């Protein structure tokens, strides 16, 4: 069994937000206006938060990039009434736009605020996916061919890259990685299989001290952070 996981080295993260931008470009996430951002209505599949502790001059700032944590025990999957959010075999928590009724219960239940409500119809451009044929005759893989208003969205660990890479026989974690991992200039992020003892993520987790966010909720998230 594979279990995809991400390891983020906070010592290397500079807070440049390249991951946020790369994610928006890769997944065609709309760019919100300043007003939308102020109202906390912009859609982010990946965000970078800054946490400060202490008072000047004894202050410490920690930059924490936060994609969806793809929990092994996801609260969002438990609360979704219509099975629109589900956990794939490989541990990726998915959101099916076709089934989602937009009740927003998952947004209330998610302890990481990884989810955004989309209130805009897709603009003229069709859903930008270079790996898939443009006419979208195949209705199998990606749950909804077009971005649609009235549903909840979230990070998918760029599952389309992984699926395509596996089909082409490429090595996931080195040759094929999610967009945020690929575009991180300081190489703070690594991606790989948690169940593969030879993977880079396993190597990092066994050699460094790591933590996960809000572990007291026992969500078993699969985004690990290496401390400063």
């Amino acid at each position, binding site marked *: 069994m594979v279990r995809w996981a991400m390891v983020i080295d906070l010592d290397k993260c500079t807070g440049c937000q390249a991951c946020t931008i790369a994610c928006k470009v890769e997944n065609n996430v709309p760019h919100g206006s300043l007003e939308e951002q102020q109202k906390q209505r912009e859609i982010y599949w990946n965000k970078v938060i800054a*946490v400060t502790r202490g008072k000047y001059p004894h202050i410490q700032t920690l930059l924490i990039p*936060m994609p969806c944590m793809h929990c092994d025990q996801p609260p969002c999957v438990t609360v979704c009434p219509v099975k629109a959010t589900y956990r794939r075999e490989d541990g990726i928590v998915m959101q099916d736009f076709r089934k989602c*009724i937009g009740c927003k219960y998952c947004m*209330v239940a998610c302890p990481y605020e990884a989810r955004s409500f989309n209130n805009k119809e897709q603009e003229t451009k069709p859903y930008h996916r270079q790996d898939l044929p443009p006419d979208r005759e195949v209705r199998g893989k990606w749950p909804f061919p077009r971005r649609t208003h*009235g549903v909840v969205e979230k990070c998918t660990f760029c599952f389309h890259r992984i699926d395509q890479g596996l089909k082409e026989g490429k090595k996931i974690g080195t040759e094929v990685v999610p967009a945020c991992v690929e575009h991180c200039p300081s190489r703070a992020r690594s991606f790989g299989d948690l169940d593969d003892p030879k993977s880079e993520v396993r190597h990092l987790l066994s050699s460094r001290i790591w933590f996960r966010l809000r572990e007291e909720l026992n969500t078993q998230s699969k985004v690990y952070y290496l401390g400063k």
Partner: protein
Amino acid sequence: MKLIYTPVEFQSRNYYLVLVILALLSVVGFICFVISYTQGHGGFGISNRIPWGMAIIITIYLIGLSAGSLILSSLTYVFGREEYRLISRIAVFLAIILIFGAMVGISLDLGRPEKMWRLFMFFVLNNMRSMFALNGILYGGYFIISFLYLGSIFANHPKWTKKIGILAMIWASLVHMGTGAIFGFIEARSIFYSPIKPFEFMVAAMVSGLALLIIVVIAAFHFAKRRYWKEPFFSLGKLLLGLTITLVVLVGIDKLTHLYSPHRESTLWLLSGPFAWLFWGFQVGWGYFLPILLLSQPRIRKNIKGLMIASSLIIIGIFFERFNLVIPGTAYPMPFYPGKIEGIWGREGTFPITTIELLMGLGIFSMMGLFFILGLKYLELLPLLEGGKESAAQASGDR
């Protein structure tokens, strides 16, 4: 003491005026819904921080009112307290209208209301671990049971009425406890998370349901120019007092336990932050303290006007209780990591009240009002007293 139920013969022009106004407001509400749907909820005050807005507040408020009045109808039909027969038929009818309004409220909140049928595909397409899906069963069953209940009451079948009444009473309690569980089982939001929430919701339902019943029944008698006995209402006032005190105790326990770690920060914020005036002013002061003060005075409790004022205070107070649960409960920023989170991710959410949301809420209430006054005119809901001898002295409809 014999009661004959007859439709109310509203002849005045005012009745039709009210009818038209309510119908117009319902249409305005519907138009606002269409606008909000095409804008993808753009006109609402909701954000990613506060996902649930006015529609959910109104929905859980209405479910509470509905469950409360259905539970109280059992006073007559299950426990055989004849003196409350005056209110029982209206209570059941009101419960049906209110739950219908609540279902409309839920569909207004859904981003994709056309897919609402998916909520009711129990065990097939639904995830039955979700509180929402379980509540779907409860709401669906509630509809059926309350219609059967009203049917057996209209058919004058006491045996069946009692049987269905028992079921309806239990089911109505479950319905609002389930609604409380939607909030109480969310571990991520510390203001929500509490095992006492379902019970708090049930008592709040009975308090608000009873207050609404007192207001609606007295007003209906008044506008229908019919005589009624006052004693039942005075003893209902006593019940209202007891229930309100129970609710205060439950809310107090909830908040007190939350004052300890790990929920301390958010609860302190609720009690002293930007929403504190809503909590202390409207929920505690207006909704609990003033009514208890009024109802504990026998002089006021044994006076129809005083009872009406106390009940209206409670009705409004419980609405703010709902508001104070949904909005501040989600507005408090999540503690992703110990320390101060900078920027928008650490800022508490704001909830602007928008025109579209307000008009939509008004539309739901108008639609229910419309159904109610139509029901009074065409259904046998309001009793006509046949000269009650001993109580004739106290019975009067004009005060």
